[in-house]
């Protein structure tokens, strides 16, 4: 029994073995002088920089402003993408009118618009939010549209025979049917959201994590640069965890998301 417990703990810790080993090796390499501090700071230095940034409050300020930009952009762009996806998926005339234009725009890398965006909005908040919004709109649009288009036609026919009106049909058949695809779109959108924000904040900003790292570069504070990168990784992971939780909740009916031994 004790053996079983130990092996279970071992299995759950195993995925962490490699990262921990890597960090230890990194620390040793830095302390032994094999790696120059100007190239890569020791993990202990990064931790110290983390600690200092927490104490003087700058970290929360930067993370807060970055998260705010990310969420605003996601809301606006994701909302627009979802709305257009629903519109084109449900209404044939809307599809004819809008879809081919969106497909054309989709192929323009949204980061190529940075010069134009700076001319339009300067380097204010709007520029970053706009870029994020444009970036997340297309994956949301494509996946919502695709999800709605691939809802089982038999279920739609059944709903009509059983007297569901257009609103009930959308709410109880089409939307839940498209939901797993919409969630895929959301996860793509989250990835693009962070990517866009990093680029936008690195190029032109006076606050945010991107600004923090670029500012640190000026003063050769490699520990802060590495800290910024790590924080991006953590925020990305956090967004992923939240999406998974949302998925589990919205798709609880799906056999792939069901907890064993629980049926409802």
């Amino acid at each position, binding site marked *: 029994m004790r053996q079983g417990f130990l092996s279970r703990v071992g299995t759950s810790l195993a995925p962490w073995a490699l990262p921990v080993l890597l960090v230890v090796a990194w620390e040793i390499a830095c302390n032994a002088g094999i790696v120059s501090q100007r190239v890569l700071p020791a993990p202990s230095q990064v931790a110290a920089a983390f600690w200092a940034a927490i104490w003087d409050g700058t970290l929360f300020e930067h993370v807060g402003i970055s998260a705010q930009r990310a969420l605003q952009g996601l809301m606006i762009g994701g909302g627009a993408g979802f709305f257009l996806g629903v519109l084109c998926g449900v209404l044939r005339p809307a599809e004819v009118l809008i879809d081919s234009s969106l497909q054309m725009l989709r192929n323009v890398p949204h980061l190529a618009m940075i010069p134009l965006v700076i001319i339009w909005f300067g380097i204010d908040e709007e520029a970053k939010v706009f870029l994020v919004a444009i970036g997340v709109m297309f994956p949301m649009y494509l996946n919502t549209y695709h999800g709605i288009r691939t809802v089982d036609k*038999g279920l739609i026919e*059944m709903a*009509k025979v*059983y*007297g569901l009106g257009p609103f009930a049909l959308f709410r109880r058949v089409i939307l839940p049917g498209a939901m797993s695809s919409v969630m895929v779109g959301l996860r793509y959108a989250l990835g693009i959201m962070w990517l866009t924000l990093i680029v936008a904040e690195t190029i032109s900003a006076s606050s945010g994590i991107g600004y923090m790292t670029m500012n640190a570069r000026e003063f050769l504070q490699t520990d802060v640069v590495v800290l910024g990168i790590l924080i991006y990784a953590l925020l990305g992971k956090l967004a992923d965890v939240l999406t998974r939780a949302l998925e589990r909740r919205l798709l609880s009916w*799906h056999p792939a998301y069901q907890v064993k031994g629980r049926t409802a």
Partner: protein
Amino acid sequence: MTLLPLSKPQGDDTATTMTETTDEPRRGGIGLPLRLDSVTRSFGSLKVLKGVTLDIPRGQFVAIVGRSGGGKTTILRLVAGLDLPTSGSVVIGGEVVCGLQPSVRLLFQDARLLPWQTVIGNVGVARGKDWKETARAALEDVGLAGRENDWPAVLSGGQRQRVALARALVSRPGVLLLDEPFGALDALTRLEMHKLTERLWQENRFTTILITHDVAEAVALADRVLVLREGHIALDIPIDLPRPRREHIDPKSAEIKARILKEV
């Protein structure tokens, strides 16, 4: 066990004096009479139905057999209002109908349950007043009491069709259409479903059309069997065997089956 109490008291016989089912021992049926008036249906140059005229009195159980492509499913879709005749008319309850009817319910080959709704949510898919109680009563009637909160994914094929049957029953249909709903079930489950369907029909007396390619199934369940061949009714034969029918007891049933098979 009856599905729902009729709002009419038992002693009220003024309403039933005009009905043709005076020998009906049970409560007055809610079945609607059905008529097809020289109905044709073409898809392009292909004539699937070539002038079908058919009169079904209220409460009759009709089975339509025939080869694939003979127009069986087309007839059903026309009666359900999922398709419109090229010429001719469909008359239900004395009225020429066009499009979906709230009094007509269809059971599909596959159960077509919404995977994201629980069993009770599927039965009460059209919602409406007191849908939970009505749905629960219907589930009890098909032998699935206690499974209200299960997901469709955990049900067997037979149970899924039972849920579909309950879903059709909650709206107290005047006409029930069965599009080979037992075709995919194993032999034992199929016999159970036959018994269940027969009992529910006897209790509720909806007019029933069963599409099947299984002649034995047709003879076991129906009052009347039609053979549909190349868009025509090739045979219209009453089955006046006593119910419940046991295959091996009645030699007459084998004789009827042979006659039908000759025409298919």
